[in-house]
């Protein structure tokens, strides 16, 4: 469903992606792992068109990104941002129903609110959270609201950028389980970026290891522990010694 071919991206003299190739089949959950600053978020933003790649091609459903109706393209995606990226000035339910309150997916106010409350329940939040402002929520609750917003318009493709960063292990486990359940339930194609190995094992169908701007290894999550790839082995076991330099 999503295919990246030889994608390059540099910021000034810093070459982040150096020919990244990746294929994510429809309905599967792909998790990209890799150290900090290896370009995982850049790859994700290139797919969405938030960052323009310098070279290479990205296809969604066989159609190259950047061509055609941008609104229709973006309407297929939902995204959970690392910090939640909730709109401070809007109450929780309006954050969740943002897409349903304007544009082509606009619904009547009451219906949008009902959908928002339903999605909040889906991620384990009570209806009384709906009228609070994001600043009144804990970090874990903000992630859940972000997740509810990502699934509110029932997108075909959902991106998760570091979904468990900054959460305690129990809350991280809850978010991982929610992501897995929602992706399976909706039949959506998912791409997750993380360096949390418990997230990888909970969420992934397939795993791709990004290092030095290219995918070093990719395969089913079950093959990850016996991959024989020195980069992947070092990363998943968290060893300081290996081909990946500890000081970058």
């Amino acid at each position, binding site marked *: 469903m999503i295919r990246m071919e030889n994608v390059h991206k540099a910021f000034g003299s810093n070459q982040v992606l150096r020919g990244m190739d990746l294929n994510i089949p429809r309905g599967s959950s792909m998790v990209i792992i890799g150290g900090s600053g290896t370009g995982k978020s850049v790859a994700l933003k290139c797919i*969405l068109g938030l960052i323009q790649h310098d070279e290479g091609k990205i296809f969604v459903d066989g159609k190259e990104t950047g061509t055609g109706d941008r*609104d229709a393209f973006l309407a297929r995606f939902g995204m959970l941002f690392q*910090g939640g990226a*909730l709109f*401070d000035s809007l109450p929780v339910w309006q954050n969740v129903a943002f897409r349903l309150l304007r*544009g082509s997916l606009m619904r009547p106010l009451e219906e949008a609110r009902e959908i928002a409350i339903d999605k909040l329940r889906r991620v384990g939040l009570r209806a009384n959270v709906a009228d609070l402002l994001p600043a009144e929520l804990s970090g874990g609750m903000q992630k859940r609201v972000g997740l509810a917003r990502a699934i509110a318009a029932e997108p075909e493709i959902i991106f998760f950028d570091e979904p468990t960063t900054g959460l305690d292990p129990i809350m991280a486990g809850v978010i991982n389980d929610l992501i897995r359940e929602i992706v399976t339930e909706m039949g959506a194609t998912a791409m997750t970026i993380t360096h949390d190995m418990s997230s990888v094992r909970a969420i992934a169908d397939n795993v791709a290891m990004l290092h030095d701007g290219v995918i070093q290894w990719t395969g089913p999550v079950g093959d990850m522990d016996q991959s024989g790839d020195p980069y992947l082995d070092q990363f998943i076991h968290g060893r300081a010694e290996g081909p990946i330099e500890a000081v970058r």
Partner: protein
Amino acid sequence: MNALMLFLAVIGRLMLDTLGAIGRVSQFTARAVSHIVRPPFYPREFANALMNIGWLSLPVVGLTAVFTGGALALQIYAGGARFNAEAVVPQIVAIGIVRELGPVLVGLMIAARVTSSIAAEIATMKVTEQIDALVTLSTNPMKYLVAPRVLAAFITVPMLVAVGDVIGIAGGYLVGVQNLGFNAAAYLQNTVDFLEPIDIISSLVKGAAFGVIASVMGCYYGMSSGRGAQGVGRATKGSVEAAAVLLLAANFLLTGIFFSV
């Protein structure tokens, strides 16, 4: 020779940077204007901007104007006394406030209050990925964040200038009547008789121009903010500096256009 080349290189680089900045701001302004006139529109965002830029600026504009009008009356009276021209206080307060001090002081207050808040808000949204989130939710940030603010400032700042003009003249009137012994009715009559339509028109046109400058600078610096708290701080500071300087330059230009002899 080398020193001369170095000097010329520095001048050239400065010129190119300045021209580049003018080009970027002009392009940004053109995009903002194009989004004001093209759907979709965001009436709720526009209403919020009207409230924040217009209504909530009234107290600071009113206080600034009343004290300035009062001080101006005292200054003109004291200065006029040197050549027996104390009687011109109502006329000079009126012309000084309506033509210059009203629009400029309101503009500077808007730059301090509104430009800084727009820049800080948008820059924080950028740093916390809220701008990216808007894009992924199929919402154009120029349309949702910039266009409503620029349009609201274009509409409300002339109104604030009109209010500031009236309150400024009222400040002069209070000081003139209470402290300087002017007859109340004569003071008002002199003020009304002396002002011409062009004075009021120039005041309102300046207000509209200053509103656009203040809001565009806030939005531009916010949208081009760097990372982290430092990026937000720089964007806020830069926006107020640029708005204040551009506003005074525009005031000079508009005064020349309206009143050149």
